């Protein structure tokens, strides 16, 4: 096993025996790592096998594979627990918020990276300072504000705060990306008779695709999984998103554990698929997000 702690091959006398020992030690470390990784994934594995069991099976053999594979939990959760409706709500809120974040974020990033104007520093400063705001401390004032303007219990009550809190990260990712693109191309396009809007939509947006992909994936994960905003701003059954519906699922079907597991499986599947496809971007992006935000 190659690690940075292991010294470069000793190559001294008796190297044969120490090499053997290193080989065994390396194997043991690999095994420990494998076990730890398996332990990390186990709760997820357990969720999926439990979602395929009957309740009797779930209580009698919690660890084993289903003695009889049942797929009705998932279809019943979809119908009974309003998971279908919740999935639709999550999809609407998430996709509109992602689109809004991309559009507003890229426009702002383009302006902030390419133009010098009087309030440039102030605008940039507002986004930097805003990143320091702890999300939870805005729940109460936002609730009061939305209550006043009659916005509670609408899709907008989620879409606008989601977009707002994702904008700084989106703007800084796109600004960083734009700084690596030479301005000459845009200037040429501008001379060719494209206005700023033409340059933006025909050049900047397509050029920024890799950065936009990262922004979109991170935003998708954040919006899809959000619980706090939905908990406070959404009350009506017809508008509840997946995490919120799930957290209330046990009120109605508390003892039907396999059914609840089926509902949870529905909720996590989209993010797991996204993760399997975009691992590298997600790991890098979320780590950067943790450091900055």
């Amino acid at each position: 096993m190659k690690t940075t702690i292991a010294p470069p091959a000793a190559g001294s006398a008796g190297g044969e025996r120490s090499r053997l020992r290193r080989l065994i030690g390396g194997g043991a470390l690999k095994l420990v790592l494998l076990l730890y990784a398996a332990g990390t994934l186990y709760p997820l594995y357990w969720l999926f096998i439990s979602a395929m069991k009957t309740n009797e099976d779930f209580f009698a053999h919690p660890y084993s594979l289903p003695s009889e594979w049942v797929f009705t939990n998932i279809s019943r959760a979809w119908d009974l627990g309003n998971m279908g409706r919740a999935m639709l709500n999550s999809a609407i809120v998430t996709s509109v918020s992602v689109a809004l974040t991309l559009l507003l974020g890229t426009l702002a990033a383009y302006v902030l990276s390419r133009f010098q104007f009087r309030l440039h520093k102030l605008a940039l400063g507002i986004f930097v300072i805003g990143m320091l705001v702890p999300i939870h401390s805005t729940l109460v004032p936002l609730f009061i504000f939305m209550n006043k303007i009659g916005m509670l219990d609408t899709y907008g009550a989620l879409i606008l705060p989601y977009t707002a809190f994702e904008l700084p990260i989106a703007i800084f990712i796109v600004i960083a990306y734009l700084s690596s693109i030479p301005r000459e191309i845009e200037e040429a396009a501008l001379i060719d008779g494209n206005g700023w809007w033409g340059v933006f939509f025909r050049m900047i947006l397509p050029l920024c695709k890799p950065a936009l992909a990262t922004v979109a994936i991170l935003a998708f994960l954040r919006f899809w999984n959000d619980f706090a905003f939905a908990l406070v701003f959404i009350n009506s059954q017809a508008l509840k998103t997946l995490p919120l519906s799930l957290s209330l699922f046990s009120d109605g079907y508390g003892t039907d554990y396999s059914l609840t597991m089926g509902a949870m499986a529905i909720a996590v599947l989209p993010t797991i698929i996204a993760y399997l496809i975009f691992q590298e971007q997600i790991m890098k992006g979320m780590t950067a997000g943790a450091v900055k935000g």
Partner: protein
Amino acid sequence: MPASLRSNRFILIALLPALIVFVLFAVLPILWSIYYGFFQWKGMGDAKFIGLGNYRDMLQDPVFWRALRNNLILVVSAIVGQIPIALAGALLLTANTWFNRLIRSALFMPMVLSTVVIGMIWGYIYNYQFGLLNQALTLIGLESWTQAWLSNPKLNMYAVSIPINWSNIGPYLIIFIAALQNISSEIHDAAAIDGATGWRKLVSVTLPMIWGTVVVTIVLCIAGSLKAFDHVIVMTGGGPAKSTELLATYMYNSTFAVYRYGYGSAVSTMILLISLLLIGINMAVTRRKSS
């Protein structure tokens, strides 16, 4: 129309939507919560100005202090649990082999899962009757250890902290791997010439090289604890008898369950003040590091 005017109009129209949404939904709420924090207000009727009354009530409320203490438990558990595990993992996973990449991906996985699902799964793991933990203990003959993990006020905060730490290890791992990969090969060569290997090299070469990163991760643990909310709401709701209340859940429970919007605003402001204080400390520490 002259070009400068045209570009001015473009700047305005392109920048304003983002700025308006951001200021209205992320910046102004902070100012409102500071303002409402001085009032007694049930959400309807007139708000009554009571000065610092809400803050006095807060500081006299044992639940507030309990919540603060629980946040501290989260910080400590992250520092003694997350950081050593992530660092050890990073040391073993520095090289970019396919095996290491696979393990890294697995360890990062919980980061993309819904916090509600994580909370519910761990609620089941801790369940008194059918929970995996109690069943496992019974299986290995430690039946006397089985208990209601989330109800026992002596233990439940620690029980709650495990899934929070478990699901957040990924970024720490990646931060440490990046730091370790940044150590130049000359330093490794020099250490090899000096005969430093194994633990000795770890303690006297590797750790000092990445100490700045360790400090950054400790600061992240502190900031991260203030963000904890979802897991606790789902697993315990802050109970039983407020024993697992955190600052954020205290804010939630003392606002929306009892319609004390003024008080909730004051708690929100307190959370803001505490996190600004932490950011200040963070900046002081990192500045000293770089100078």
